[in-house]
């Protein structure tokens, strides 16, 4: 019999509905597994055991009273960049140690209204800046497929909690690949919704024109369930779009008939591509063809410029967003004798190396004399990049490509070389800059047994399309597996 902690959200919901298990039982199973594994894996920064059991009891009562919902009583994990009322929210930064938000993020509030249970808050790169979760001020999260390797980032804790059966699913955030890349490196499904599909209210801002909240799950259907729960307009976020939320699970079909899949040639030519990744993704594309899709080669000519565009725009926005951390209203304060000096000392002591690096790049790019050359030019090239996607989507329904140029790298391997770390985002940040949606779905393993992800990218607000393609692929293959974690 499958362990309770291996069940997908859909499977758990079916058993809860049938009365075979209770939410309290399921929640205890997850808390036990967290207790057994998380000293080693360190996916969580905070485990909210008491809150979880209380929410589970309430979910069981609601079910006993006749309520039913696929999320009622299902235990989830939330990235620590999402505000949770009264529960420490640190963004994995020293500067927010002890911060307890006075409100809960809209995405989590929506899940809680549906009866989801919060197991805790997951580790991440500080303020979501990074691709390995090594930039956390608190813990190094390990990849459950190989404990010496990174889980990817920045939503590494959410990916590991989901992959290792320490949550039924999780929320992460994606600014340049931070959901899709860790999902790929940990062998789970990760969906980055279109910009504006999910309210960012209660998401601590990194790059406001790029940030989006999305699910990490053990099946495509689960991703559809979670996305349907968190999507939609929110008066508290003026950039959340007032467009109807379709029933994403209804869009899932086991074939690709009538779909045109574009293969962007530039996404196979990135520097440092691991040949096994290219092979696995090519094989996955052949599988999509066998399922009835028409395969078309397309070009996204500004792909190579994407990295430079991203590493100007995201730090520029971050430098403005992170100005609020000054020791006055929340978080750390290091007294400097006078106000400006207090700001400087607080920020100098509270931010880690990568956050300082990005604040410095961003401040430079926005400073007098450099704004036109760096920031404005980057925003113009961003327009070209978006036009590439617009043109591609006139020819095809979805794009298929690798997620990450390589499988999980070793802990410590890239920490001394920021540019090498940034290269991990090469194939994901294009979709972020264009505001379109993307999903990572497991498509194989390399010779070391490390997971590989297939990226499917769709036009803005066409999440149903990438979910359908990912589902058809997933149903025809069996790459969604759980690691045997040795602790």
């Amino acid at each position, binding site marked *: 019999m499958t362990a309770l902690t291996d069940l997908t959200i859909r499977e758990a919901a079916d058993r809860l509905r049938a009365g075979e298990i209770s939410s309290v039982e399921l929640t205890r199973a997850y808390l036990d597994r967290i207790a057994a594994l998380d000293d080693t894996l360190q996916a969580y920064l905070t485990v909210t055991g008491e809150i979880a059991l209380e929410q589970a009891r309430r979910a069981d009562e609601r079910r006993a009273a006749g309520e039913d919902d696929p999320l009622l009583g299902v235990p989830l994990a939330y990235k620590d960049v999402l505000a949770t009322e009264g529960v420490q929210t640190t963004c994995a930064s020293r500067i927010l140690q002890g*911060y307890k938000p*006075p409100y809960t993020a809209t995405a989590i509030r929506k899940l809680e209204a549906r009866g989801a249970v919060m197991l805790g808050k997951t580790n991440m790169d500080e303020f979501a800046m990074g691709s390995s979760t090594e930039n956390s001020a608190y813990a190094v999260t390990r990849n459950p497929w190989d404990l010496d390797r990174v889980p990817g980032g920045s939503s590494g804790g959410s990916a590991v909690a989901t992959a290792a059966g320490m949550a039924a699913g999780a929320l992460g955030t994606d600014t340049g690949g931070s959901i899709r890349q860790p999902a790929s490196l940990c062998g789970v499904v990760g969906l980055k919704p279109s*910009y*504006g599909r999910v309210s960012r209210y209660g998401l601590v801002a990194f790059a406001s*024109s790029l940030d989006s909240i999305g699910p990490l799950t053990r099946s495509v259907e689960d991703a559809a369930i979670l996305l349907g729960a968190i999507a939609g307009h929110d008066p508290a976020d*003026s*950039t959340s*779009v*007032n467009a109807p939320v379709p029933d994403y699970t209804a869009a899932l079909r086991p074939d690709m008939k009538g779909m045109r899949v574009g293969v962007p040639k530039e996404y196979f030519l990135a520097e440092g591509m691991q040949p096994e990744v290219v092979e696995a993704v090519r094989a996955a594309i052949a599988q999509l063809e066998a399922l009835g899709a028409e395969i078309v080669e397309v070009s996204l000519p*500004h792909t190579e*410029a994407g*990295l*430079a*565009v991203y*590493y*100007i725009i995201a730090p520029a926005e971050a*430098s403005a967003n992170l100005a609020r951390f*000054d*020791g*006055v*209203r*929340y*978080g750390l*304060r290091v*007294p*400097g004798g*006078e*106000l*400006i*000096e*207090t*700001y*400087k*000392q607080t*920020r*100098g002591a509270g*931010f880690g190396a990568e956050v*300082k*690096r990005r*604040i*410095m*790049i961003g*401040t*430079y*790019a926005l*400073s007098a004399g450099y704004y036109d*050359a*760096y920031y404005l*030019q*980057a*925003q*113009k*090239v*961003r*327009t*070209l990049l*978006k036009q590439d996607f617009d043109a591609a989507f006139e020819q095809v329904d979805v794009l298929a490509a690798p997620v990450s140029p390589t499988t999980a790298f070793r802990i410590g391997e890239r920490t001394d070389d*920021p*540019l090498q770390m940034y290269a991990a985002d090469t194939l994901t940040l294009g979709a972020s800059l264009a*505001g379109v949606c993307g999903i990572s779905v497991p498509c194989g393993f390399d010779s070391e047994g490390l997971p590989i992800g297939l990226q499917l990218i769709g036009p803005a607000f066409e999440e149903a399309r990438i979910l359908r393609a990912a589902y058809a692929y997933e149903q025809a293959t069996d790459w969604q597996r759980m690691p045997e974690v040795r602790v």
Partner: protein
Amino acid sequence: MPLSMEEVEHIAELARLALTGEEKERLREELSEILDIAQRLQRIDTSDIPPTATVLPVNTVLRPDESRPGSPRDRLLENAAEHEDGQFRVDVILD
């Protein structure tokens, strides 16, 4: 194009970041490398291309001008390092 130490210190001042000598030296090298890559964007012809202001197909969104309750003051003050009389307390900025 390597940055000078003066430039690094000027940016740190603008960003209100206290940095150690070692941090400044390291950032000087790293920022120079990153900006070299950013320089490559200069080669792309963008003469007729507008900058991306938003990726969304929407313009200004208006809502009814109705008052709503804000966050409770005492809850907000709970997270402050110092507060007094319902206000955040900071160092004196005017003598």
